[in-house]
């Protein structure tokens, strides 16, 4: 997408540059407005939109028994709940998820609007008081990622960070499990 945008920018600017630096030449209204204006832009956009919608369909959360973890945001900390061998486990500021399998994160807020984002894992989703948003993510390999609050939430916004610990599902930390809660 970045490359495509770059190419289009270069193309348009080249046309503009040619138009400016070359002398007057016949210029057909239909060619510019219909072919370039309508035809070119609409075909690019149609292709782009089709891809985006397909990708969007693939990544939205569905009710299909995927592993669920919960995040509750509050000025200015994150509280997570993940399944454990002896029932749900609550953690502060650290979320444990298995590698290589999708999980749904359920987002709620106790005060103002926050937004859950782990740049390395993908898209973000807001935590809104009175609403329960579900967002699907997946981590490919074990490791630790930085997470942050992406929606401005007051004076402690910049420091509202958290950590995501991605573990190998074959070897989970003792207090969590990769099985969905019943």
């Amino acid at each position: 997408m970045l490359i495509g945008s770059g190419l289009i920018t270069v193309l348009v600017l080249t046309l503009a540059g040619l138009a400016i630096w070359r002398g007057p030449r016949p210029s057909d209204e239909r060619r510019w407005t219909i072919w370039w204006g309508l035809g070119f832009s609409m075909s690019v956009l149609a292709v782009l939109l089709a891809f985006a919608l397909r990708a969007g369909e693939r990544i939205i959360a569905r009710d299909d028994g995927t592993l669920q973890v919960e995040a509750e945001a509050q000025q200015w900390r994150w509280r997570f709940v993940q399944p454990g061998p002896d029932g749900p486990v609550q953690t502060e500021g650290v979320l444990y998820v298995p590698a290589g399998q999708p999980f749904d994160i359920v987002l709620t807020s106790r005060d103002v609007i926050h937004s859950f984002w782990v740049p390395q894992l993908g898209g973000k989703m807001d935590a809104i008081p009175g609403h329960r948003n579900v967002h699907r993510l997946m981590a490919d390999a074990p490791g630790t990622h930085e997470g942050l609050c992406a929606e401005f939430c007051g004076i402690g916004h910049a420091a509202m960070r958290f950590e995501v610990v991605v573990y190998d599902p074959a070897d989970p930390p003792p207090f969590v499990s990769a099985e969905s809660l019943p």
Partner: protein
Amino acid sequence: MIWMARVLAGPILWGALFSGIYGLHGLGCGLDWPNRETPLGALHPLAMIGAWLLGLALHAALIRWNRALGDARQAMLVRAGNWIGAVASAATLFPVIATSTCG
């Protein structure tokens, strides 16, 4: 100023259709329509697709019959208005047949 109304008819129809179907979508998700079955499938997509097709038919009618007397530029703008509305309705609302409803 009837001419101006003719130019705006297509875009206004798009506006009505867009807000109507968006409203229908929100209402349906609120009232659990996706799980209400009708002989032709779930009620929610059915209602939206029905509204969309009806709207497209109205757009077609505009393209066929909404024409302006007057000079070439006026006639061109009425034609353009008709098509702007029709293309907008087709392009912005086609997700009713392409994506999942309330997920």
